[in-house]
């Protein structure tokens, strides 16, 4: 492991913030290892994203805009990533710890014979070895794990763990040779649900609703206005997603998304361990709950014991008024 290779995740050409975070972090790690910082961009829209990435401090960007990437489930991605890793040479591969990132990483450990550390929030280099910090056991422990010296190693990195910083002289673009044309698992439909303007993982403020909201309406009537006033996005507990009140892609927690906004407001959420692991690293946690003894009391900075239906609209008004005064 001498170089660093970033898997530049994007969704149908829409760049993900985590990609820029990884590109910036890759530079720092590569410098510590005395190697190159590289990225690989795939699928339709790749050329444009590669151009965007050139304002980050990378040495090389591997590109292929093969449409197969959008037609087949990850197989072509894994092929291209393997090819890019081999082109980049012995490297630490950084992959966003997202639903698809995890799938890619699992397959790549076999292709590259690589060790993996998951959900990494800090990376350091000591005597040429790569050390990764990651929370485990639902955040009960923070582990320091070394990738043993080998040609390749993989870290799946938590979104928002690193800051994105532009800079650099404009990386060299290298086209990857086209891979095989067809694969077994074909995507027939790709449907976006509950599309939000801001990706939940990237939102600076998250307003999350739970079973305490009692139905789908309060998500629109109560949470959306509050999120809009604070410049944030709406999320949910699994209980709310299970009830069909919101689509699953708004779910936060172990089986949903991990978020680390500077402000997290939990509305009618009890704070079960599986929910907690997805949000406990948030900057400030505020909870509104009828029950003073709800588990969330143990890890929120402020718990307001009361009825969300009464508190949230008033709070939204206060914030809107304050914003009005400022502008």
């Amino acid at each position, binding site marked *: 492991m001498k170089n660093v290779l970033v898997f530049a995740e994007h969704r149908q050409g829409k760049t993900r913030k985590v990609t820029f975070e990884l590109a910036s972090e890759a530079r720092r790690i590569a410098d510590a290892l005395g190697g190159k910082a590289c990225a690989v961009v795939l699928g339709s829209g790749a050329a444009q994203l590669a151009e965007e990435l050139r304002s980050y401090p990378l040495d090389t960007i591997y590109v292929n805009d093969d449409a197969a990437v959008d037609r087949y489930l990850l197989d072509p991605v894994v092929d291209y990533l393997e090819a890019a890793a081999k082109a980049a040479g012995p490297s630490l591969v950084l992959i966003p710890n997202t639903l698809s990132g995890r799938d890619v990483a699992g397959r790549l450990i076999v292709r590259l014979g690589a060790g993996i550390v998951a959900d990494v929030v800090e990376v350091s280099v000591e005597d040429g070895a790569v050390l990764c910090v990651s929370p485990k056991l639902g955040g009960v422990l923070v582990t320091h794990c070394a990738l043993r010296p080998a040609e390749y190693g993989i870290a799946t990195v938590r979104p928002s763990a690193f800051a994105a910083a532009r800079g650099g002289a404009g990386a060299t673009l290298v086209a990857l040779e086209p891979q095989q044309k067809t694969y077994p698992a074909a995507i027939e439909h790709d449907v976006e649900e509950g599309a939000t303007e801001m990706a939940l993982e990237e939102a600076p403020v998250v307003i999350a609703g739970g079973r305490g909201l009692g139905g789908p309406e309060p998500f629109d009537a109560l949470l959306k206005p509050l999120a809009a006033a604070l410049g944030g996005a709406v999320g949910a507990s699994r209980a709310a997603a299970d009830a069909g009140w919101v689509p699953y892609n708004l779910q936060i927690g172990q089986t949903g998304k991990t978020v680390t906004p500077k402000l997290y407001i939990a509305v009618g959420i009890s704070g079960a361990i599986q929910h907690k692991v997805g949000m406990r690293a948030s900057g400030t946690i505020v909870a509104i709950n009828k029950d003073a003894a709800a588990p969330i*009391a143990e890890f929120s900075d402020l718990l307001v014991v009361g009825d969300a239906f009464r508190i949230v609209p008033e709070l939204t008004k206060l914030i809107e008024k304050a914003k009005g005064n400022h502008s």
Partner: protein
Amino acid sequence: MKIVVTVKLVPDPNAEKKINAQTKRLVRSGVETVLNPYDEYALEAALQLKERAGGDSRVTVFSMSPEPLRETLRKALAMGADDAVLLSDSGLEGSDVWATAYAIAAALRKLEFDILLVGGLTDDSSTGAVPGALAEHLGLPCVTNARKIDVTDSGLQVERETDLGYQTVHAPLPALLTTALTFGEPRYASLKGIMGAKKKTIATTALGELALELPVGTAGSKTELRSFAPPPPRGKGRTVEAADGTTGAQAIFEFLEEKKLV
């Protein structure tokens, strides 16, 4: 149809967890071992597929675990799995994700299946990398996060959850699937199921039968746990009782002002 479900045996997710400072392993004593919750959901999906397919369909559960945990697999048999296979060997101790997937894949090669159902994530280590790694080793199509599975003449028709919504995917059999948690709560074992489970077989496999080319266990692992510590304490925050909406809203607003968040 033959279905294999991989099941990790994990410390009760709701129990307090400790690590032995010397061995750097999880303290298992005093903490009940259970089926990894995600794998229970996968098993539920497998049992539903078996019921729909009918005929001589079978569900086998597979686990790589220390031998003393063997009886925990009975729960899966009581829920309705037909038999179980346990890969157990002291040589597997200390295996990391790579070594685990390598060993499991070798053991699975000895089983026959149309569908391999894997949990999305383990509750204890939570890498979510094992499913993809197994698919690579076994050369299977890998469809993760399935929320609806239909078996057709030409293979599998799957609806899967994505970060943005969902996709429908077609894949030939045999295939590896991981399931979302949308197949309903895992069923309880009935009394009849529990009685029946006592007569079902849990076959054991040891490393010697797998003829692995590469080392596993601590020696075969590519990562090494160096140290661990509890996260910095968050400190218990404030609690404010809000008699009405206005007091509650005011309390939050002032707190956000204090934190410079508004």
